[in-house]
């Protein structure tokens, strides 16, 4: 494997990690609108992700930084091409991030309402945009011969296929978040999260199936990489069916693992569908940008590889440790920081 391929894999891992981790805290953020019946419950929900959301978001920053360093052309084309979606993503993440910290520091109704909406929309918009973005990537975008993308907002970026992709990510994140809540709370909230999960189970399932079907119609993913992706999607659907029983049987840890695995499989499938390209052009096949064209030089990649191989295990170790420290269920009987 060439270093550029290794970095394509690493960036895939970073995005998968981001979706898995921030996925549930997006879900918890969304749940504050539907699940909590009073202020204390709202606070319990927010506190379940309190110590973790910031570090989870760093996965996104690292993915962005790694794309810049390892594939400057990918970073340049993608971020300038998807200009407006990224502006919206940034606005959502900004509002959401401060909301966690600011919300509990002042006790006026208007203040709380403002930050409640920030948390809700800031948790809803990002997974939607990420879904739209990745579906767009595998569908292909108008890339010119200078590697620049000139995409229309409605049409190239937002269309039937990418909309379904966006909604699928929102629903899956929400489900993933609900499963996280069943693991991290007690009593009514825990029960309500479970009920809610069962309530949206079939709708979410239908959207996933629709997305799998539309992928066949709108992209070349099955034609090019069907041998890998079709089994992956088959596994994802089976896991989704198993999820129903797990939720019914109140197997909370398993349920959470299942929603996580489904998100992992779907996100990973995007990178497999792209390979060996990083951008697929709809204007002309020769305008596809491949991993090798987009990559940094051998020296730079070598330096980055050494740094990453040293640092990633350390980062993973203290991340896991911090989840271990906060493994207890969050209860209103204890002090709530946020």
């Amino acid at each position: 494997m060439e270093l550029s391929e290794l970095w394509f894999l690493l960036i895939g891992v970073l995005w998968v990690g981001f979706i898995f981790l921030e996925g549930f805290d997006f879900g918890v953020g969304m749940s504050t609108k539907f699940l909590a019946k009073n202020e204390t419950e709202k606070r319990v929900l927010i506190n379940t992700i309190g110590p973790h959301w910031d570090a989870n978001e760093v996965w996104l920053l690292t993915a962005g930084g790694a794309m810049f360093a390892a594939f400057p052309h990918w970073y340049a084309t993608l971020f300038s091409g998807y200009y407006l979606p990224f502006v919206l993503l940034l606005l959502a993440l900004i509002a959401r991030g401060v909301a966690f910290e600011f919300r509990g520091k002042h006790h006026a109704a208007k203040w709380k309402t403002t930050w409640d909406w920030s948390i809700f929309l800031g948790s809803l918009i990002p997974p939607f945009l990420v879904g739209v973005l990745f579906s767009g990537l595998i569908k292909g975008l108008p890339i010119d011969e200078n590697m620049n993308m000139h995409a229309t907002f409605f049409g190239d970026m937002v269309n039937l296929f990418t909309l379904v992709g966006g909604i699928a990510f929102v629903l899956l994140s929400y489900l993933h978040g609900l499963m996280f809540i069943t693991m991290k709370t007690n009593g009514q909230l825990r029960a309500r999260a479970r009920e809610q999960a069962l309530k949206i189970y079939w709708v979410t399932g239908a959207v996933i199936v629709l997305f799998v079907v539309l992928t066949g119609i709108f992209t070349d993913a099955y034609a090019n990489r069907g041998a890998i992706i079709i089994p992956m999607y088959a596994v994802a659907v089976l896991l989704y069916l198993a999820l129903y029983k797990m939720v019914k049987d109140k197997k909370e840890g398993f349920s959470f693992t299942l929603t996580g695995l489904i998100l992992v499989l779907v996100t990973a499938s995007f990178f497999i569908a792209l390979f060996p390209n990083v951008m697929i052009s709809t204007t002309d096949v020769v305008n596809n940008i491949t991993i090798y064209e987009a990559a940094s030089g051998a020296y730079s990649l070598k330096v980055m590889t050494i740094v990453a191989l040293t640092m990633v295990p350390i980062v993973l170790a203290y991340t896991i440790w911090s989840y271990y420290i906060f493994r207890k269920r969050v209860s209103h009987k204890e002090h709530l920081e946020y």
Partner: protein
Amino acid sequence: MEEVLLARIQFASTTLFHFIFVPLSIGLAFIIAVMETLYVVKKDEMYKKMSKFWGKFFLINFAVGVVTGIIQEFQFGMNWSDYSRFVGDVFGAPLAIEALLAFFMESTFIGLWIFGWERLPKKLHLASIWLVSIGTALSALWILAANSFMQNPVGYEIANGRAEMNDFLGLLTNQKLLVAYPHTIFASLCTAAFLLIGISAWNMIKKRDIEFFKKSMNISLIVGLVSTLGIAFSGHAQSQYLVEAQPMKMAAAEAIWENTTDPAPWTVVAGIDTENQKNNWSVEVPYLLSYLSYGKFSGDLPGMKALQAQYEDLYGEGNYIPPVKTTFWSFRIMVASGGLMILLSLIGLILLWRKKLETSIHFLKWLLAALFLPYIANSAGWIMSEIGRQPWVVNGLMLTESGVSPSVSSGQILFSLIAFSLIYTLLAVAMVYLFIKTIKQGPHEKLKDDTTATDPFDANAGGAVKWN
């Protein structure tokens, strides 16, 4: 060309805004770590109270710093895609390493610090804030390594039509980085120190919690004096570096049009006429510029006119003179603020140690107002550094106007500029509001307030807390 201007305004505004919060985070993390260390070592509850009280400001500020930092990671690609293509091979690595090495560390351990007061053993909790402090300082190192490449490109070769890294260690031992890093770290400590000084002064004027704020004042005045002196020395090293590596920036910062005499006088203030490329009047101190540039009382400096001619030979036709007035005045604002802060912290310490500070109400009011000085100096310093580098985005390698994204329209940039400005204004208002509220609340935690920290394992406290 409209795109270049708008993209520059957006970069300048988002970066300057981000840098309001960053230095305070870096400095405050360190000061709080020191306070908590004193708590753990001396077992004096006062220091725990101090860590918690100043920690509130830290957390409010840190949140805004984090979210405004996300834009920094993305906007190179969004607005400056041609720049990203050209330098990504060199410039991307420090950014990625910053995220991997620093962001993960600070975000994970800040979570442990906020939520860990009752869950972690004392020493582990203390270690968390030290790791946050180290994380913030590491983050500054990597982002300055990236910026230093823009000021003084090293460790690269031109290959495949772009700059490619060929010496990673060279990138990290960039002369510019070695002088800019201590300057920035000292400036960060100074920013935090003067926030503590200002708020402590206000409380001393109001005669609230005198003992608590005297202790805070003592720590922060010491940090203030040491850091402002550090700023001066590292700043002096910066200007000596500047003469060598970026003579045009130096000439603009000093409004030197013609080559200077030997020894060179330092211009304190001047009436600059950029159109006719001369100064109408100036106040000068003999010998001083030679000393500032070379550390001795002799030596001359090239003027902008000569450098312009030299650059035209080297790079072809064009205007290589940066906006002189902005560079000149921002430099002076920075130096004046710095000098004032050295003076204030020195007088403050003398008064405090002679036990006269409490009663020097007039001087305390000065200290309160001085809270803004570091922010003025920090912003002015970056304006001087970045404006003084123009017209280059990477000094001598790439012009700013060549770096902009060809696929992004001016309308799109205008939209994002307005959107970011609006949300940043709201953030600033909310933050100032919370700061004032926290100051008014004071360091004593009231049991009625449901944000109050109570020990869940303390049986007596359990019933006293109201959960609404």
